[in-house]
């Protein structure tokens, strides 16, 4: 009986001394859904944290308003951690970062301050996930957390969905998790892209489209929607989306002068060549597409289809060239030409690196686009309601 007693006593001591120290009930925390970081007064960082407001449906007949499901707490500090630890002072509960969905960074802050410094806390602390999505916000980021969500529980969740599904289906923005951003930022070309969130004119709704270009951890420019699409095609991150192109020989005055195809698959390869410090880049894009809308084209023969395909290719090439010119003008190598050169020959890269910005701006691109229309959809290749022969 003695050994049994001593084992039981030892176990009890173990339970009492080693156990429970990190035991916290669910309702001791506030669960962060989104965080917005802005420039504050006196050079401080202004932190707006969106907490989930749990509401018990028991006993209350009324539907809880969606707006009440989120609570915004605003704190400020020289460093983020300082600002974060001030949250309980105002909120009464400790912030729990595990379930944070998005990080919004104000445009002003992103232009003036190093993004790496801002995001360091979120990757260093053990609570936030590496899969949290950073976003650059037009204007003040804190304002975006005041927008009520449509269906989702919190606006943080809605922004996450907007970003992931928007980039997947419409390809007008990208989706990049925090850990991937870190990889991009420390790559040789030191450039990355972050999705961009902006408000409608009324300020009551937000849209995630466009892509913010980050170079040396600072915001450089924001690509417009069409350029964003072309940019994603260039970097082979285009999953699916719609390509619009004009009718052949359509009069400018006509309103419905555009047709569209749905991109089923897109493969692009970028091969840089370097000769006498002149960079030439071969870009080869292969698109498989399905006709989405026909308004003026009649695809009756193989020749018709070839003409149709070349029209699309032309349009895509045009758009890519435009996007590239934007990047070259801002000297931001987000498509990773520098990375490719570095991988090919680190020695060469060492020589090129100091003058890379100019080299990139001067480099020539040879774009080749091949389009294959694989299906006309449920109908034959004539517009709706027109005779088929």
């Amino acid at each position, binding site marked *: 009986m003695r050994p049994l007693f001593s084992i039981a006593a030892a176990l009890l001591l173990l*339970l009492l001394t*080693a*156990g*429970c120290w*990190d*035991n*916290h*009930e*669910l*309702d001791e*925390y506030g*669960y962060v859904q989104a965080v917005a970081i802005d420039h504050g007064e006196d050079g401080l960082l202004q932190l707006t944290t969106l907490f*989930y407001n*749990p*509401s*018990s*449906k*028991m*006993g209350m007949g009324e539907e809880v308003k969606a707006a009440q499901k989120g609570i915004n707490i605003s704190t400020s500090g020289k460093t983020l951690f300082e600002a974060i630890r001030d949250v309980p002072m105002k909120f009464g509960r400790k912030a*729990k970062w*595990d*379930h944070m*969905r998005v990080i919004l960074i104000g445009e002003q802050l992103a232009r003036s301050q190093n993004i790496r410094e801002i995001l360091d806390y979120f990757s260093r602390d053990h*609570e936030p*996930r590496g899969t949290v999505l950073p976003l650059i916000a037009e204007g003040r980021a804190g304002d975006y957390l005041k927008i009520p969500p449509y269906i989702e*529980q*919190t606006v943080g*969740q809605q922004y996450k969905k907007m970003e992931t599904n928007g980039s997947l289906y419409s390809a007008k923005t990208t989706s990049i998790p925090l850990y991937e951003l870190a990889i991009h930022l420390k790559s040789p070309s030191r450039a990355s892209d972050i999705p961009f969130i902006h408000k409608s004119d009324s300020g009551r709704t937000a849209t995630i489209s466009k892509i913010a270009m980050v170079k040396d951890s600072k915001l450089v420019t924001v690509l417009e929607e069409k350029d964003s699409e072309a940019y994603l095609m260039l970097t082979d991150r285009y999953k699916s989306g719609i390509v619009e192109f004009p009718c052949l020989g359509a009069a400018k005055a006509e309103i419905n002068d555009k047709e569209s195809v749905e991109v089923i698959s897109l493969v692009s390869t970028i091969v840089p060549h370097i000769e006498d410090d002149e960079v030439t880049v071969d870009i080869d894009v292969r698109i498989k597409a399905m006709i989405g809308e026909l308004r003026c084209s009649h695809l009756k023969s193989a020749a018709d289809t070839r003409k149709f395909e070349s029209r699309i290719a032309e349009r895509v090439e045009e758009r890519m060239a435009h996007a590239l010119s934007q990047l070259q003008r801002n000297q931001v190598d987000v498509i990773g030409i520098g990375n490719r050169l570095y991988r090919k020959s680190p020695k060469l890269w060492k020589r090129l690196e100091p003058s890379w910005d100019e080299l990139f701006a001067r480099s020539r691109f040879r774009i080749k686009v091949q389009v294959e229309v694989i299906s006309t959809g449920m109908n034959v290749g004539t517009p709706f309601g027109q005779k088929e022969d």
Partner: protein
Amino acid sequence: MRKNPTYRQATSGIPPQPETPSSTSHAEPIPGLLPDSLQRMKEIFAGCGDLEVTAWQYGPKLQQSAFSVYFQTLARSDRRSFLRETLQNLVFHDIGPATEVTVEEVAHFYEHRGASASSAELLATVGEAVRGALDGKVVIFFDGWNKALAYDALHLEQRQPSEAITEPSVQGPHVSTIENLDRNVGVLRSLLKSPNLKFEFITAGEQSNRKIAYGYLSGSVKEETLAEFKRRIADVGQAEILETSYLEEWIEDSSYSPFPQVRYTERPDTAVSALLDGKIIALVNGSPSILICPGIFLEFFVTSEDYYYRTVFSSLIRFLRMFAFIIALMLPSTYIALSTFHSELIPTVLLLAILNTREGIPFPALVEALIMEFFFELLREAGIRLPRPIGSAVSIVGALVIGQAAIQSQIASPVMVIVVALTGIASFALPQYNMAIAIRILRFPLMLLAATFGGLGIMVGFLLIYLHLSQLRSLGQPYLASFGPLDISRLRDTLIVFPRLALLRSPRNRHLRRGGPKGKQRA
């Protein structure tokens, strides 16, 4: 861990009584003189109000005397006129001048086993006579003969075999065992018509004289298991065995383990399949349950019905039961660990849903779980003992108290109710009640561990349970058999039930393939 027999006798509730008349006189011969034996019987059965002692005179001139002893509560009324029967038995035999029936002739007839219409038994000692009367026999003493005659006249109303209440089945035989040992053994013998089916009988308890039988299929049963069983059961005769489960403590290896090492059935078909599997079964008169040993962990997830269905379905059901086992054991502790230590592991949308229900509950998750489990156990215990008409009232009140009121008054969260209810249902899904009890017990330490150490605690708890299971033995056989030690050939009837043709080559039918250990000797 085997307790010593003296300790066990002290706990069986009947203190040893050295000088009771009935227990001392077993070997005492029956006195030849009628007044003496009458006196002895009256002494022994003093105070037994239902005993009938009748004096008789017989012979042509009624000069011979005898008396009979029987319990009117046990003996059938139409068999009570035994003496006439006794004497009538003599009539058809030529035993000399039939004019005089003397005690010598009666004695001679019965001592030489004269054929008679109803079998009579010769008793030589007072002890036998007492036992005979208690067994429902009519015992007749003759003047001048130091033996007694006993006629079987036992008549007791007994339950008709009905559908097995504890183990109902959809397909397969519905008949169950009853409280009569001989009838149960007879049913088993009729289902397994083999001379290899052996039954051995023991009488246990000085007071209750309970008849116990254990059976096995020689050739299928492992010799060393049988030897070990016989060694353990050897001293069971000293104790009062009132129910089959009393035997468990003699047979099992560890009385303190929460896990059952024998299983029970009330279905003859299950017992037969266990016999074919090389198990030993034990029955006690007065109880319908059949004990099957040695019990292996995986067998507690098996019902005989599994073999009556199609193999794919049976395999799925086995997986379901395994899953139910894990849910019943770990769900509350996992919920506690996740919600108090690892909220980052809960998917976000689910977490928000849980937060909605959890907000405003005054208790920590552990206390909440303990309260709900306590309610549940309380309801379950109350439901079992209550008569059926009131039982439904308990479930209604229970559903209201636990399901509605507790949630509405924010004492418990709906998620916790789901967890507890799911745990309860999962534990009902296990075919063996014994195993469900084991899980019921183990759930609580796991919950405590989860509340102090989180996921690590559950891991440690599970590991301890696993260590215990792997060192546990049942009648000398490893409890986790087929898995540890791994036996690939046996795995086809564990989690997955192979088709019967494949099972024909399984260990259950070892004796068919090799003719068993005895077959080997012949070859």
